């Protein structure tokens, strides 16, 4: 289990940042993602794996209107 924006999410071996975005349906393009406090650059979303019990923060910037 990991925490994503203070909500629990089931974890699986090899889970990537991209997998988290898909699981949460986070499709907004302007995100800032920290895994255990470490900033993950956008090009690395597909390759960065997330350990079990990780604390993930997915900051959506403001847009619209």
């Amino acid at each position, binding site marked *: 289990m990991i925490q994503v924006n203070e909500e629990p999410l089931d974890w699986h071996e090899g889970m990537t940042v991209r997998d988290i975005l898909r699981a949460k349906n986070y499709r907004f393009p302007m995100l800032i993602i920290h895994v255990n406090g470490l900033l993950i650059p956008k090009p690395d979303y597909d390759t960065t794996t997330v350990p079990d019990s990780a604390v993930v923060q997915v900051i959506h910037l403001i*847009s619209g209107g």
Partner: protein
Amino acid sequence: MDQLVFDPSKVMAIDHTRRTEYLGALLAYRTGLRTLKEVAYTPSLPDRGYNNRSLYVNVDTLEVTEKPVTQQMKDVFIGGRGFGLYHLWNAVQPTTKWNDPENEIIISPGPVCGITQYAGTGKSLVVTLSPQTEIPIDSNVGGFFGPLLKFSGFDALELQGKSTKDVILFIDGVKGLIRIDEAPEGPVDSHVLGELLTHLYAENDADLPNVSVVSTGAAAEHSLIGMLNFSFYDRRRGCVRFKQAGRGGIGTVFRDKRIRAIVCRGPKVAGDLNHPADPETIARTGIKYHKEIREQDPHQCMMRRNGTAHIVEIMNAYDLLPVHNFQFGSHPDTHKIDSSYWQQRCTQVTVDGCWYGCSMACAKGTDGVVLKTGPYQGHMVTVDGPEYENAAGLGSNCGVFDPDYLLELNFYCDTYGICTITYGTLTAFIMECYQRGILNKERTGGLELTWGNAEADLAMMHQMARGIGFGKIAGMGVKKMKTHFIAQGWGDPQLINDIGMENKGLEYSQYMSKESLAQQGGYALTNKGPQHDEAWLIFMDMVNKQLPTFEAKAEALYYFPLFRTWFGLNGFCKLPWNDVVPADNSSQPEPQKVPEHVQNYVDLFTATTGVKITKEDLIMQSARVYNFQRIFNIRMGKGLRLHDAAPYRSLGPVTREEYESRTERYDKQLQDELGIDPAGKSTEEKMALHRTWRTDRFSQLMDSVYTRRGWTLDGVPTLERLRELGLDAFPEVVAVVKQFI
């Protein structure tokens, strides 16, 4: 799930230069004009962003006067919305109504407006006493009029009085004349009138881009929700297009004054007309920003490709897209009206900016639309948009997922002079009333206003434009419709009040706020009413969980409304601030504020005016005007805590269907937030628990926000706050506050 990829092969092959033309009436219109007044003046260009004079026109007495713009006006009110509020305050009394001759319409561009080196710098602000809210309304609008007015020599235009005949005000900033013409019988709808007048007042074809027309349409004469269209000439399409000053019924005031149109002809636009103090800094800042747009936008919001419609699918994914009068936040048919469709349908071979130099270029247009209904049935037109608010308001919120009908609704709203946001929300309210038996076919005069019935929706709009039938009732807006329905005994008053999405008399714009307490405040704790241009905090609050306490929400509801107010003081568009961000924004402190862009704005203001400011000064500039506007509301008999009340639909689930469509979410909240086990409780019992909890925390939010803003718990700025802002220099302002302290 992943970001949309643009496929040029899917763009529809539509000739963007073809459309129905209306110039056949040009000669008759030209010969039908009768000059009532003509005044010569000396044109000027701004110095450091200001001309230091404004233009006053009374359409009744035909008085045409220049007024000085004083140093105090510039120091305290800056320009744009600030100048509008300042002039309006001086024009009206606490007893003035929107349709009294004393009421004014003020258009002011702001000191930075008109530079061409940075994106989003062509905006002007329109201010008047609103027919819907009976307090000042301000609306931020693109198009060329504001910059051309400024380059004709004026920092603001004040319109007062009520004419007994239709008039056209013409400002010729090249020849130096101001003329009031009696308008002949003829079209009032903007897509016809705008084209006619652009060609009528331009000297030749090359002069067409130097002319801008402000107009409205037939519906503004018969409703309280009229808006103003500000034109700009689209060289690539070879046609006149429009941006809208939409909210609050400004177009209604315009037609009540019997103004048919305002036309400004300015000099040919060049990059140095604003005569800034430091053009090198402006150029350098602009080049940096344009590079950012070019490199980052394709991987971020794709504003250049999709415009604001890019967030239709985003809002749907986050359960934030208003569906069926804000009951639900998503719908399975959204894909029919999201940007995957619009990027195929919108013309993609042009640069769609509504002012020179805007590299964000989000003013999308849909060409080759052949109308199916109404007085222009069979005509081929260009539709400005659809923007997000139109797709959500006219589309999903009313259950209309047919893009052709959505475009037709968008078009007729624009040309009739109807605010699309307002129309979407009031129609959604009507459709829910129809669903729940508050309305029926007999009460609507035969219109079957069921969800998604676009033909009935259009029929109602055509009625509104003619001032007949149920369309005339709809044109009163949600607040007055609620009163009317209740007075007729047509339904449960509490239900009607709960589902009518208005605050202060203004309809909500198109975002779901139920699950974001901060956004509930972002809508309701506003000066003019629930428009998202003060604060959009849903992601920060609901998704990111960055605002966990009342104090954190209050801080956001202090900073963001003030920061965004500043755009309207200076002539900026909000979109370039945060619809693209620098590549390294993620590593900046407080990235949601986009610190590099904030610094750009500080630099642009300083480089334009020569007045050195900091980012803290920027907030203080806004705070003066924001608090002045709050006190203006109080002066007009509103502006207190009770006027910030929100309809319950904006706070939580009103109906069983709403609750049961998201049972898991709401039950979990009972458990986690209230410590109540939902097991064994009926839906009605659980809804009642939610209502108590949600209304109580909204009240707590009000306390926190008022305190942070330096207001009493009744929402009145304190004398201490006035002193901090320097507003104690205005005895009339202090006197208003003292009545409540």
